[in-house]
């Protein structure tokens, strides 16, 4: 009688997927600058975009992008691979951006549109439908101006959550981790950010003609 070892169903042998970034980070840790260069190439746009969204300042965004990558390089040993490399990098960029904002808090405050006062829990006031596609109403540059202007008017805390969650596609948990916030706090800020932004955009995108009652 053979002492057969218990067989493991094939479908339980799930191969562990290793993210390509993990190998690049490992090589970079060993001094392979080309590997780190590859990571820079992959994520420079994302880091710049996050910094630009948070600071609303192009020069700051350029400086932050450089500083964030340098800091990441210097601290590669601290990256344990518990989160995605991109999330870790974005967290560094967010910290650098917020630090930059704090430094110039007296010099340039973010503009607030006067007629938007949506408080948490309040029901948005603008109920106008938009045309089927806002992008069809405006040229690329005009739409870009509108999007920049409206997001610039958000309080930095809301703008940051919206940027990470809705533009950079971080999960709620990753956003919470990057900002040192609780998950409920992220959800609350995200709701407020989305509704405020929607209301600001409504000025541009609302339909001007009535299409008749909806069922």
């Amino acid at each position, binding site marked *: 009688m053979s002492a057969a070892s218990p067989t493991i169903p094939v479908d339980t042998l799930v191969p562990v997927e290793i993210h390509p970034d993990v190998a690049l980070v490992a090589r970079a840790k060993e001094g392979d*600058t080309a590997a780190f260069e590859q990571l820079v190439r992959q994520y*420079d746009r994302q880091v710049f975009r996050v910094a630009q969204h948070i600071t609303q300042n192009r020069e700051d965004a350029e400086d932050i992008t450089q500083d964030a990558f340098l800091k990441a390089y210097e601290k590669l040993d601290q990256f344990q691979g518990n989160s995605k490399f991109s999330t870790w990098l974005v967290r560094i960029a967010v910290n650098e951006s917020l630090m930059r904002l704090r430094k110039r808090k007296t010099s340039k405050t973010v503009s607030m549109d006067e007629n938007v006062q949506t408080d948490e829990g309040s029901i948005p006031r603008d109920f*106008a439908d938009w045309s089927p596609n806002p992008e069809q109403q405006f040229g690329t540059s005009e739409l870009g101006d509108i999007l920049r202007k409206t997001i610039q008017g958000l309080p930095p805390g809301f703008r940051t959550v919206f940027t990470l969650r809705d533009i950079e596609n971080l999960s709620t948990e990753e956003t919470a981790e990057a900002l040192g916030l609780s998950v409920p706090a992220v959800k609350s800020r995200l709701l407020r950010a989305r509704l405020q932004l929607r209301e600001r955009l409504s000025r541009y995108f609302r339909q001007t003609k009535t299409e008749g009652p909806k069922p």
Partner: protein
Amino acid sequence: MTCTDFLSQLTDYFDGQIDAELLAEVQGHIAECHHCHVVLDTTKQTIEVYRDNEIYDFSPELQSRLHATIMSRCREVKVR
């Protein structure tokens, strides 16, 4: 479900993190309340229009310049 209840569920609704019973309530409310239907639709469009449009210029020139500076600074760190 009231409009305020609907709003409080909006984030979870977008994230698909809402249980079946509540989902049915939300959908029932949207079907009946035109205002909330519009809020849902225009909020969704808000997210999409931002997600789909690169609103800050990141030219190849800027990328090259950043790239060169970053790698130059990294190599300095390595030398030390």
